[in-house]
């Protein structure tokens, strides 16, 4: 048989293509979590991936776990936040996933809806504190009424209020933080105190931070910017009264110099600096952003409130991390044993020491309130927490060229609120359609 040059090239091409695609096929097998003794008495090495933002909390947890037992050794690998999804997806595609992942709960659905995580429903249902776990975290871990991840730690957006400035301005914190009218009145009074003191603060060029702290104002009215279920989601921006009023409030803050001028370019790289200087009256942020670096004297004069809607109602971003066991994990039993350890009340109650808050409502004991008073507010109203379930969250809210930041900047800094919302509607629709494809 003779081989012509054309045949040779064609065969070589097909062979190359086949080789390139060889690693693409075949799903990894999920762990059998119903087998007797699963998650008990395991041994060996546990490969755990965490995101760099929560490294401190994870390190403390691993240290405590090693001190508590000697059968399992945890190898902790931190992954930069911005690369987490890509690296995990690549590891799964390469059929070498870690045994356990500590993943930003907002990204859980990306993997769950692509059948990459093990169904943990039977294990979670057996937990004695199942009903006290954060519903927001669990909501992001649910597909077809099955749980594919379990809450680990919370990172919630709340409003930090500087009591000294409130008192000097003669404004009551509770009255000021229940609606937009209260916010505005308080911000004006505090900003009038002296130059370089501002009533409010936001990082106007930080897409993710704005998504974290601004959306709860909209959710407080029981509406979201994304409508529908995964597979058929659309934007709910144009004509959304809550969105319009929220943008109007933030626009007013900017127009009336109630936020620092640096807000225009602030990318949240020094997110906490202005509040820690004691010159900001109200600051939406998370416990971990403000508390660890703050002067104890400032913290003593700080109170925390949930974020209010235009005319009342409250909400907060139910962010944080979930634990998930990827399909194909080599040591899933050890992974679940470690998860149970991390969810014990002793470990959960210590999370604020590392800058995070618990995911168990029953962690809010009297002793906890006394030790970590600024971490209590979300725990007392866990049901008010929310986070959007979408495969396109990252694209819409965390990318600097996403429609969320584009809408925010056009509305707040250029004052074109309606046009910004209309434009965002089109881009939300397009991205959601592409993301669900």
């Amino acid at each position, binding site marked *: 048989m003779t081989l012509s040059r054309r045949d040779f090239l064609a065969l*070589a091409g097909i062979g190359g293509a086949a080789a390139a695609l060889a690693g693409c096929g075949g799903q990894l097998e999920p762990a059998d979590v119903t087998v007797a003794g699963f998650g008990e008495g395991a041994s060996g090495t546990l490969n755990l991936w965490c995101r760099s933002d929560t490294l401190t909390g994870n390190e403390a947890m691993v240290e405590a776990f090693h001190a508590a037992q000697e059968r399992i050794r945890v190898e902790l690998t931190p992954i930069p936040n911005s690369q987490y999804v890509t690296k995990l997806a690549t590891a799964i595609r390469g059929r070498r996933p870690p045994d356990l992942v500590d993943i930003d709960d907002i990204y859980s659905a990306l993997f769950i809806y692509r059948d990459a995580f093990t169904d943990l429903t039977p294990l979670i249902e057996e937990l004695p504190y199942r009903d006290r776990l954060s519903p927001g975290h669990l909501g992001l871990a649910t597909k077809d009424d099955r749980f594919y991840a379990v809450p680990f730690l919370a990172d919630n957006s709340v409003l930090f209020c500087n009591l000294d400035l409130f008192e000097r301005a003669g404004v009551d914190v509770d009255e000021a933080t229940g609606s937009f009218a209260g916010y505005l009145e308080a911000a004006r009074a505090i900003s009038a105190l002296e130059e370089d003191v501002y009533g409010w603060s936001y990082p106007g060029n930080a897409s993710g931070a704005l998504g974290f702290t601004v959306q709860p104002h909209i959710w407080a009215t029981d509406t979201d910017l994304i409508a529908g279920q995964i597979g058929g989601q659309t934007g709910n921006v144009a004509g959304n009264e809550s969105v319009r009023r929220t943008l109007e409030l933030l626009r007013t803050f900017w127009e009336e110099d109630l936020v620092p001028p640096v807000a225009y370019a602030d990318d949240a790289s020094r997110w906490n600096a202005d509040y820690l200087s004691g010159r900001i009256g109200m600051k939406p942020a998370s416990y971990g952003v403000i508390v660890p670096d703050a002067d104890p004297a400032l913290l003593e004069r700080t109170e925390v409130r949930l974020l209010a809607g235009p005319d009342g109602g409250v909400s907060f971003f139910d962010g944080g991390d979930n634990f998930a066991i990827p399909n194909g994990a080599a040591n899933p039993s050890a992974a679940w044993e470690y998860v149970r350890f991390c969810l014990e009340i002793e470990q959960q109650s210590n999370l604020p020491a590392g800058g995070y808050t618990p995911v168990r409502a029953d962690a809010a004991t009297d002793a906890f309130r006394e030790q970590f008073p600024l971490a209590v507010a979300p725990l007392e109203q866990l049901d008010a927490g929310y986070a959007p379930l979408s495969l396109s969250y990252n694209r819409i809210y965390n990318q600097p*060229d996403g429609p969320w930041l584009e809408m925010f900047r056009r509305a707040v800094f250029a004052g074109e609120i309606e046009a910004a919302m209309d434009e965002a509607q089109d881009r939300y629709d397009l991205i959601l359609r592409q993301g669900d494809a």
Partner: protein
Amino acid sequence: MSAVTSRATAPAGVPRRRRSDSLTHPRRTGLLLVLPAVAFVVVFVFAPLLAAVYISLTNFPLIGSFEFVGLENFALALSDPVFGRSILYTLVYTAIVTGPILVLGYTLAVIVRANRRGSTLLRTVFFLPFVVGLTTISFIMLLEAQPDSGAVNIVLRWLGITDGSTAWLVDGPLATALICVLVIWGVSGLTMILLMSAMQGVPREVYESAELDGATWWQTERRVTIPMIRRAIAMSVIISVIGSFLGFTQFFILTQGGPGSETTTVVMSIYRRAFVDLQLGAATAMSLLLVLLTALVTALQFWMLRERD
């Protein structure tokens, strides 16, 4: 003795030696000689390209299963206004930087082409930004472009041009201008080296003749140097244009494509589809469109810069 001569002088009745039986050109020698090169091209060019074409016809995700979707990814890409804007922005960016890179590179080459005292030092200095790389200088610029605290704003305030609070990286046109200046400074060194090498290859006698004919410096450059280094100029422009088409690093570090999608280049658009949306099928379709566009523009450049004589 060549095979042709042998065939011509073969006596009648003696079977004529077939061409493939040549002693100097044994059968399959040619094929064997080119086989390594062919194998290299097949494995590293054709096979990935074929795989890319196949992937672009599926809804291939980074994780999970996939299925054949025909030309849907191409239709989506062509109807995506953000992708369209990113192509347009990339073309505009390329148009802005290509000319200055060539002019600055040529000027620097003129300065350093003669082996005078200090030429080596100047060559090193001019080429240094290219060696340091766009990634490093982009990170430096990220710090120096900050309002109030960055060196760019401090210098402008000192010169009395601005008040020093300019937020360069959160304004589309300002960010583009800053990145263009950065890139022109950063990559002109490569053009300088390419053109300088070509200039040094021009025979000295040609310049002496021009001098004897009374040509001015400008006439010598225009009538002697530029025509004689035409191919080097063409190559520099093509390298520069392709590099600008694939611009990513400086935008990713400095603006991340923002504000909005005002500074999103086509490669960044593809990157986001692949590694943010995890849709490799759609991203590959966009990549193939970029390959096509780049090939078209390069072909156009070859045609425009061809030897006309």
